[in-house]
């Protein structure tokens, strides 16, 4: 299956792009996606081990099982207002 990873602010600077399509085995969780991204090296190696994530625009724990086509956003500390 393929999921879309989105990066914002400091994470976007680390990743070097806004988004990345990632192929994962069925049944993978957000934590597996994070481990895979960190293992790519480069700037993504600096992605935290336990970042805040949202799946399809809802905050979701890292144990959340992903589905094909999910949009997984990594959310650095927010600073709106």
């Amino acid at each position, binding site marked *: 299956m393929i999921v879309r990873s*989105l990066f*914002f*602010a*400091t994470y976007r600077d680390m990743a070097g792009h806004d988004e990345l399509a990632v192929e994962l085995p069925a049944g993978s969780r957000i934590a597996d996606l994070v481990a895979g991204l960190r293992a790519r090296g480069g700037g993504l190696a600096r992605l935290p081990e336990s970042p*805040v*994530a*949202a*799946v399809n*625009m*809802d*905050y*979701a*724990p890292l*144990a*959340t*099982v992903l589905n094909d086509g999910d949009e997984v*956003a990594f*959310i*650095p*500390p*927010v*600073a*709106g*207002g």
Partner: protein
Amino acid sequence: MSVDANLASVTPDPIDPARMLSGALSPRDGAALLFWGVVRNEHDGRGVSSLEYSAYAEMAEREMLRIADEARARFGTGAIHVAHRTGLLQVGEASVAIAVASPHRAEAYDASRYVIEELKRRVPVWKRESYVDGDTEWVPGFTPAVPQEAAS
């Protein structure tokens, strides 16, 4: 959408305070309160020249609407409209506006406070400050609370 529905928007365009207020009001309301958050010229003693806001716009709108719905249910106000700017803002420009219409004033004050505090805690928006000395930095923020159980 009913005429007095809550509303949330993330926009690159300047926010119009009069439209925010009139948009939230319905004939049932006796007051409307506007929170008007603007870019100021210093942060922790450093001179700020401009601020650049970026957002996960679709999620930010959903989350702001959720917060407006929570505040309205909790305090029993009328419509709550929330707007957040993105892009490059100069000192004095509004970055966020919250209009709360209400039959009575006390509820409006409570709801307005609730919306801005929650917005700062959980809406996916980020800002990068440019300082008068030429430096640029992402402003450290709040780590949103994540539910322990998956939503679906």
